């Protein structure tokens, strides 16, 4: 073999071109693919990628607290844990289940039944347990059992403020009372945010806030905790002592129209609502109406004074046989045959009030009641507020005009009644009632002249003096003015002979009124049923405590108030 020059192999040109074309084609395929991924599927792919590390977290919005006017808490949310399970994943020994049942405070057998129900993917074992118990449950380390955080409402005031504050359901939405009325501002709105989590589940970066969580706002009520608990205790005592079915009480601040206390008996414990009846839940002071009876007489008299037909000293003929209208007779048990207008209020004469009313135009009487706030809801925002019933004047027959004068044939709520008395307390102005704290004095609407209001106030002061219907309403140190009411209860379209509603509405101090207190006792059944005997002492007790709590200066000599002797108390007819 000789050394030959390397053979020059001539490759055919098409081979190089073929390889070239192949490479170019492959390049185009890659380019097309990348365009496809980058331009057409980019969103889908990015989502997939993000899903590996980005998470959306719920941010809870806590519910606002409810406070009294001094900042004491009436309702607070605290976190609790709810324990739930995926039955299919639970593999626990009977002993472990028993321990779990002990921690949860449930029946072990029922717990086992829940856990063995493999058809369900989610079952609550126990909702809302305290964090301490939840921690112990977590320490058991059972598989398939999980917890999540919820919030629960607690009501430190318990039964004292139960009706007013109301309560929330298990999902923290207001169901009753103020909790329901102010749901929009109290309720928190949960938000959510997107975060990046690392391999170990820690949040490493905040990507964006999808929706900011909004905490509910705190709500300051007009209630004064001290007066409220005093009022509740006094009312509860009276309802028990008189074996009554129920009772309600309202304390109003005359200057601001704020409700300082609002109590109802029977009450309930809002923290444990296992056994509740409808009667316990009713907020009688706001949502129930009753025929007020004699507590309406001052309005009739105020109208008569306003019209100029009578003065406080004008004599009203009472007679002995009662007042006969159509085929109905209005009775009066008083021995007097002639009373002055002031005495009609002092002794609570039905015949007198009826005679005064019959001298007035029924339209005027209707307008008086209407402008005093009867027949229309008081607009406090409380759910289920009663408007009461005030029929249009053109449907009144003469007998109705007469009975309306002393509060029959008309129905009102206790809150309406208390508010209407601000007329006499504020020299003729009606003040709007409010459940929220307000620092500024409220503007009222003038209904009667200041002079008339003062005259009626003087008559109401007579009513609590010896010879009036309610000497037991007096309080040492302050001049009190007020009016009793004793009304037969309505039943099956008529009046029950032996069922009464005893009431008392009054104000103090009479020289410069600060408070209106209205008390209503439903069906006192212990022998006594007159407003002056049943309701007036409650009024006195609450008024005394409230005036002292507010530091209202004395306007009467500090002499003990003697209890009335026999025969010194005027009896009401209704």
């Amino acid at each position, binding site marked *: 073999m000789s050394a030959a020059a390397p053979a020059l192999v001539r490759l055919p040109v098409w081979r190089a071109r073929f390889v070239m074309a192949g490479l170019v084609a492959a390049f185009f395929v890659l380019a097309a693919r990348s365009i496809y991924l980058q331009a057409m599927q980019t969103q889908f792919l990015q989502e997939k990628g993000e899903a590996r590390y980005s998470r959306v977290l719920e941010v809870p919005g806590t519910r606002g607290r409810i406070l009294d006017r001094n900042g004491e808490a009436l309702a*607070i949310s605290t976190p609790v844990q709810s324990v739930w399970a995926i039955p299919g994943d639970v593999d626990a020994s009977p002993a472990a289940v028993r321990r779990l049942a002990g921690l949860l405070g449930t029946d072990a057998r029922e717990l086992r039944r829940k856990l063995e129900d493999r058809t369900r993917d989610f079952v609550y074992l126990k909702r809302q347990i305290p964090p301490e118990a939840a921690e112990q449950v977590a320490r058991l380390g059972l598989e398939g059992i999980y917890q999540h955080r919820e919030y629960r409402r607690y009501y430190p005031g318990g039964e004292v403020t139960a009706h007013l504050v109301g309560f929330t359901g298990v999902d923290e939405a207001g169901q009753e009372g103020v909790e329901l009325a102010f749901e929009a501002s109290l309720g928190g709105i949960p938000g959510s945010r997107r975060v990046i989590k690392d391999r170990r589940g820690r949040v490493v970066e*905040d990507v964006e806030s999808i929706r900011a969580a909004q905490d509910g706002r705190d709500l300051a009520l007009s209630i004064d905790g001290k007066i409220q608990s005093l009022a509740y205790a006094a009312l509860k005592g009276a309802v028990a002592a008189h074996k009554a079915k129920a009772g309600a009480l309202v304390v109003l601040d005359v200057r601001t129209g704020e409700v300082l206390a609002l109590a109802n008996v029977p009450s309930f414990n809002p923290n444990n609502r296992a056994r509740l009846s409808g009667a316990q839940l009713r907020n009688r002071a706001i949502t129930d109406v009753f025929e007020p009876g004699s507590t309406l007489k001052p309005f009739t008299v105020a109208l008569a004074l306003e019209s100029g037909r009578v003065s406080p000293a004008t004599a009203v003929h009472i007679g002995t046989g009662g007042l006969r209208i159509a085929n109905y007779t209005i009775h009066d048990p008083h021995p007097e045959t002639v009373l002055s207008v002031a005495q009609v209020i002092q002794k609570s004469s039905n015949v007198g009030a009826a005679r005064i009313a019959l001298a007035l135009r029924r339209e005027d009487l209707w307008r008086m009641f209407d402008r005093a706030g009867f027949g229309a809801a008081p607009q406090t925002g409380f759910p289920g507020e009663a408007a009461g019933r005030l029929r249009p004047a053109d449907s009144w027959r003469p007998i109705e005009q007469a009975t309306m004068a002393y509060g029959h044939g008309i129905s009102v709520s206790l809150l309406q009644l208390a508010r209407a008395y601000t007329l006499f307390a504020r020299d003729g102005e009606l003040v709007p009632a409010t459940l929220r704290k307000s620092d500024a004095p409220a503007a009222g609407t003038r209904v009667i002249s200041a002079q008339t209001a003062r005259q009626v106030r003087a008559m109401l002061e007579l009513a609590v003096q010896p010879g009036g219907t309610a000497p037991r309403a007096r309080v040492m140190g302050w001049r009190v003015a007020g009016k009793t009411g004793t009304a037969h209860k309505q039943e099956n379209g008529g009046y029950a002979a032996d069922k009464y509603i005893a009431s008392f509405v009054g104000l103090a101090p009479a020289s410069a009124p600060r408070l209106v207190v209205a008390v209503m006792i439903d069906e006192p059944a212990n022998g006594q049923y007159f407003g002056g005997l049943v309701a007036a002492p409650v009024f006195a007790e609450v008024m005394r405590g409230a005036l002292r709590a507010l530091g209202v*200066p004395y306007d009467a000599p500090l002499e003990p108030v003697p209890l009335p002797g026999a025969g010194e108390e005027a009896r009401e007819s209704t």
Partner: protein
Amino acid sequence: MAKLNLLLLLVLVVCALGLVTSQHKARKLFTELERAQARARELDVEFGKLQLEASTWALHTRVERVATGTLGMRMPDARQVRVIGAMGGK
């Protein structure tokens, strides 16, 4: 030209390292923030609990019971109370 490129490369490396450290710092600060926020929530919850406890202890009925029962106090008679003018009616 090559010099400029080298310089730009250097600048690029420095920037890249800067980005890494600042990212790291940001994450560290963020975890700190998270921890602080969690702590704030915890404290808030505890505040609520303490408030609840405080109002339970300060219940007017309980205060009254302790005052009259344990401490033997009683409500003063109206004659033993002076209401001072300047504060009166407030």
